[in-house]
């Protein structure tokens, strides 16, 4: 009886911890939060929920509300510093290779480079957009419980 209670308590704890981890941002990109010459922005699920309630879609035909409701976090990392930019790009490349992201799109236009990668998982799906443009590198990490169909709905 006691044993059963202990097992139940442990299972509850594991589920609670798993849900906490699932709601969190992509850990691999957290290290930029305190890096010199790099700006790091994190918008949580709570803030995204608030955005979804009041925001009017600013791109015609793009369903921002449904996408925002499926997002659990957005991380935006950017830098204009030459060495920080180089390190950021190389680190991101390693993270994408290590976590086995797939390429969704690569756009080369007027000197700007945009690479979009994705990883779809039951617990957490992630879309990473790397923009290298006019001496500034920006990495945007969208994490949530969305599917690739939800992402492609954003394209008109």
């Amino acid at each position, binding site marked *: 009886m*006691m044993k059963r209670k*202990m097992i139940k308590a442990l299972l509850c*704890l594991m589920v609670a911890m798993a849900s906490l981890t699932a709601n*969190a*941002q992509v850990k691999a990109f*957290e*290290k*930029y*939060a*305190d890096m010199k010459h790099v700006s*790091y*922005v*994190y*918008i*949580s699920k*709570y*803030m*995204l929920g*608030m*955005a979804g309630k*009041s*925001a009017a879609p*600013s*791109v015609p035909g*793009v369903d*921002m509300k449904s*996408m*925002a409701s499926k997002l659990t976090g*957005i991380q*935006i990392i950017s830098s204009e510093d030459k060495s920080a930019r180089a390190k950021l790009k190389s680190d991101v490349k390693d993270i994408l290779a290590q976590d086995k992201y797939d390429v*969704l*799109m690569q*756009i080369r*236009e007027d000197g700007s480079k*945009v690479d*979009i990668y994705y990883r779809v998982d039951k617990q957490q799906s992630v*879309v990473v*957009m790397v*923009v290298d443009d006019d001496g500034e590198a920006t990495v*945007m990490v*969208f994490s949530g419980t969305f599917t690739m169909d939800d*992402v*492609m709905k*954003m*394209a*008109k």
Partner: protein
Amino acid sequence: MDELNYKTLEQIPIPEGLEERLSKKIDEWEQAERVQKAQRRHLLPRSLRYTAVAASMALVFGMGYHYFGQDEQANLAEQDTYQDPVLAQQEAERALNLLAANLNKGVGHLEKAKVLSDKAENTLNKQLKALK
């Protein structure tokens, strides 16, 4: 039949002192059982108690290490950058717009490529028909 057996049994003479001896034996068994139970109650729960205390301590330390033992960098990252929902909304919109714009660019190029491919296919078909 049962009544008959009972009556027959009642008639059998009981040896002297048997009742006392049986009662004594039952008392002995009862006492032995009580001692065994007491021993079990002392030994098993104590070992379980130590294990439970050790497991609880390990769990508390583990959770403490997981949540509070992480470096400042991680704690910083866990915090929302914007405390103002309006600013967070603007930044989220900007990010989503940029993603949508780039997705559209990519899809647009794909559509252009499809149009070109369709044109080439049509021209080829026309040429093939002309040859026939």
